[in-house]
């Protein structure tokens, strides 16, 4: 029996280690210009962060929620000073770029958080600073392992990126330093119990996102970086308001996530909803979503790390944390509807896109919308679905982003139309892409299990909102099938076997792609243990008792289906494959395979283009309508908050 006090010390050290350790590689990388040394530092830094997070996950099995106070009383002051410095930096760069709206919001936030600190300076040491439970540990593994793999991938990718963009200054030292600073801030967000701490780390992630989006330093990149900054600041302003509300109404003992949830909806609903608004901005929900689409100008590892698998997850993490508060509340349902509308509208827009990164961006927004919908519904089953969505989306989407990045450097395009028959010249990456896409929407894979659980959850949610969400989900998931399946089809439209062009792909890129592919499959087999040992205990802590979730027998069927997909082709290959190969039917005179001769002797090769249905799903029109609907919903939410505050 280990002493309880010892465990606490160990935990605090591990949590602080995870938050602080990435700063060491970040500092080293700022000054390092040698490529080989950089590779060593990045690999070591990523590896240690990943191991640390896995260790934390192992510890968290069988542990309850734990809260810790960091024995350093001056730390609040340090954070305030850092916040002022960050604000100063943002004011200077915005003034240079004449982005006065951004300056306004930076100053507004500084004012608000200054006010909050002033109100709570004596009190807020009362609440524990850090927390850990299964949910934080899962988030930590996503940040540590997937984030680490993406950092390693970036080594290879960024070298080629600089070769392709000779006109750009080589700012890679800064680039990798910001990546590690970002990892540190993300660990901070998911381990914070004190909302003032969480807000601090939250703002650091916004800063990192801004810096990384403007990395290409083109006019477009700079504009998009400021847009991302502005939207996150608008949403982020709700965070200090929530803190002030708690300090004014509930007292500083409710400033911790744990105590705030325990205080119940009567006290927690308004601050939780305010934080949910900040979360919606960070998770790029409509009407904020255009910042995330614009962020795709950044190098692909940035899109994979910040704008799909981790930073945007901070938003949904914050909302999901407060899910028990939203359970059965109309305000929670309004938040859920915002997520639901975002899911449907952005899924429709994804149909009309042929740029692979934009498809991934819109599908990311859509999936975040679904997570917001689950978190807003707030029942145990919905939260179960939300956490699984977070896990599987992080894995599959980062795999997809990275494989698109690799393909882009090989074929010189990120357009899906240019990936016709990619399975021939790039069989391995093509297969990985197929697995990643399948992971996003097909039956035995994880995302679909989460969708399934969300349907179960929505059908028990507050009527009629639950049913409205079901209808939204039914249409949204149909649309999802469309744009993913046509992409898969494109990859398989093989003309003839060509020589592989994969030998040029760097080791660093393989080192990330292979584990992520493996994780996509392993995580599906692991659903039952993840649910039993991690998520169900977490739900019991949050809700007390929980009813039956997805029954184990159904999960078994899913695993069997997955096994069938893997085993059947191998078993049947010999029996099934054609003995003789024929030319395609071309409806005229076929000169050679795939080329036909017309009536005037013209020879034409077939060119196949996918359906994009721009008339039915126009990007601009849908964004407009989606924004109008969600703005109305946000107004309803704000009205509810104001009237709730008065009453």
């Amino acid at each position: 029996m280990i002493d309880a006090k010892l465990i606490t010390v160990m935990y605090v050290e591990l949590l602080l280690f995870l938050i602080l350790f990435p700063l060491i590689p970040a500092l080293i990388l700022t000054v390092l210009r040698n490529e080989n040394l950089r590779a060593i530092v990045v690999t070591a830094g990523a590896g240690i962060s990943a191991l640390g997070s896995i260790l934390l996950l192992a510890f968290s099995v069988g542990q309850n929620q734990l809260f810790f106070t960091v024995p350093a009383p001056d730390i609040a002051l340090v954070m305030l000073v850092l916040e002022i410095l960050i604000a100063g930096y943002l004011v200077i760069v915005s003034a240079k770029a004449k982005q006065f709206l951004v300056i306004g919001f930076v100053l507004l936030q500084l004012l608000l958080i200054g006010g909050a600190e002033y109100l709570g300076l004596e009190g807020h040491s009362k609440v524990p600073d850090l927390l850990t439970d299964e949910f934080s540990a899962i988030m930590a593994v996503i940040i540590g392992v997937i984030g680490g793999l993406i950092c390693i991938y970036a080594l290879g990718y960024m070298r080629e990126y600089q070769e392709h963009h000779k006109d750009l200054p080589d700012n890679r030292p800064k680039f990798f330093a910001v990546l590690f600073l970002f990892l540190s801030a993300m660990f901070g967000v998911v381990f914070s119990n004190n909302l003032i701490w969480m807000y601090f780390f939250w703002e650091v992630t916004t800063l990192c996102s801004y810096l990384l989006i403007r990395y290409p330093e083109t006019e477009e990149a700079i504009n998009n970086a400021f847009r991302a900054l502005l939207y996150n600041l608008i949403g982020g302003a709700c965070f200090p308001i929530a803190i002030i509300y708690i300090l004014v109404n509930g007292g500083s003992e409710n400033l911790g996530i744990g105590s705030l949830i325990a205080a119940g909806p009567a006290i927690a609903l308004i601050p939780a909803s305010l934080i949910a608004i900040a979360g919606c901005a960070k998770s790029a929900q409509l009407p904020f979503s255009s910042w995330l689409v614009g962020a795709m100008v950044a190098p692909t590892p940035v899109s994979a790390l910040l704008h799909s698998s981790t930073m945007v997850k901070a938003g949904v993490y914050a909302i999901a944390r407060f899910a028990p508060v939203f359970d059965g509340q109309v305000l929670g349902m309004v938040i859920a509807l915002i997520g639901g509308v975002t899911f449907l509208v952005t899924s429709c827009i994804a149909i009309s896109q042929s740029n692979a990164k934009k498809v991934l961006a819109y599908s990311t927004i859509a999936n975040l919308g679904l997570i917001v919908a689950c978190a807003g519904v707030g029942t145990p089953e919905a939260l179960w679905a939300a956490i699984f969505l977070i896990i599987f989306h992080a894995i599959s989407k980062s795999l997809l982003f990275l494989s698109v990045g690799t393909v882009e450097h090989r074929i010189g395009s990120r357009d899906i139309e240019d990936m016709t028959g990619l399975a021939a010249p790039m069989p391995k990456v093509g297969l990985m892409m197929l697995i990643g896409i399948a992971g996003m929407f097909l039956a035995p894979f994880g995302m679909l299990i989460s969708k399934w659980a969300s349907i179960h959850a929505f059908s028990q949610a507050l009527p009629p909102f639950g049913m409205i969400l079901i209808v939204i989900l039914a249409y949204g998931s149909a649309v999802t099938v469309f744009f993913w399946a046509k992409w898969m089809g494109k990859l398989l439209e093989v003309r003839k076997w060509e020589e592989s062009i994969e030998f040029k792909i760097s080791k660093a890129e393989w080192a990330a792609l292979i584990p992520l592919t493996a994780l996509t499959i392993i995580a599906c087999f692991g659903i039952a243990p993840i649910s039993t040992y991690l998520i169900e205990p977490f739900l019991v802590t949050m809700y007390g008792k929980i009813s039956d979730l997805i029954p184990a027998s159904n999960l078994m069927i899913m695993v069997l289906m997955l096994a069938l997909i893997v085993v059947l082709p191998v078993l049947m290959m010999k029996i099934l494959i054609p003995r003789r190969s024929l030319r395609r039917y071309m409806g005229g005179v076929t000169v050679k395979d795939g080329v036909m001769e017309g009536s005037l002797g013209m020879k034409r090769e077939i060119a196949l283009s996918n359906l994009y249905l721009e008339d039915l799903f126009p990007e601009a029109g849908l964004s407009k309508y989606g924004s109008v609907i969600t703005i109305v919903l946000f107004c309803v939410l704000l009205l509810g908050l104001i009237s709730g505050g008065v009453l």
Partner: protein
Amino acid sequence: MITILTAVAFLIFAPVIGVLVSGVDRIITARMQGRVGPPVLQPFLDIAKLFEKEKVGVWQAPAVLIFLHLAFMVVTGLIFFGGGDLLLAIFALTLSEVFLVLAAYSTRSPYAHVGAGRELIQLIAVEPVIIIAAVGFYMVTGSFAASDIMNYSGLPVILLPGIFISVVCILTFKLRKSPFDLSTSHHAHQELVKGVMTEFSGSTLGMVELAHLYETVILLGIIYLFFVGNPLLAILAIIVVYMLEILADNSTSRVKWLPALRGAWLITLILGGGNIIALSLL
């Protein structure tokens, strides 16, 4: 135990029922057109013959993907008739359909390519109704498990009239019948030749046909669920619905995909969506 038996029964008898349904369908269709029509077992003979043909194809992938299409169609039926979760069965069905679409794409035939795109449009026209129907059954019976729904003693159709009408409408897509035979049809004399199936031949085409027999039985099973409390009425309903489908097939000409999709979505939204939202407020 009973559920395992029904699952096994499905595996063995579904093709038999499918052949009979399809054979009778062909005779009635022929009579409507003033022909005598083939013998009832003609669909069986057709498929049997396909499996004796030489295996040829454009490359290896399509045959494997079609096998997966068939395999997961069978899995769908096993889950459904084995009393499993309705949503799980629906997802397996979608997976099976996606394999068919991928097989069509992978042939890289211009006709199959157009067919695959249209098959996907049909898929998204149909998907919302089926999910909404499953939730409708949950609201009426309190369970997503097909075995629990089978034990329900009332007639779900009374509470789910809107959903029932939408399901009947989209059944035309699923049975590949006019006016919604967009991606392929029984007749090859058209602008997209045989659509998705253009490049499939021999046993590959045979597997597609076999999968369609299984699918037909699954779809009729869903109609059955609407009348589950009264088996006699349920069988009568299936016959009436199928007759309507044949009538529609023979009296309409194919519509373009856009009005088909719009129409299916609108009907689903108003009748299906309206039905479950109203039901939740009751």
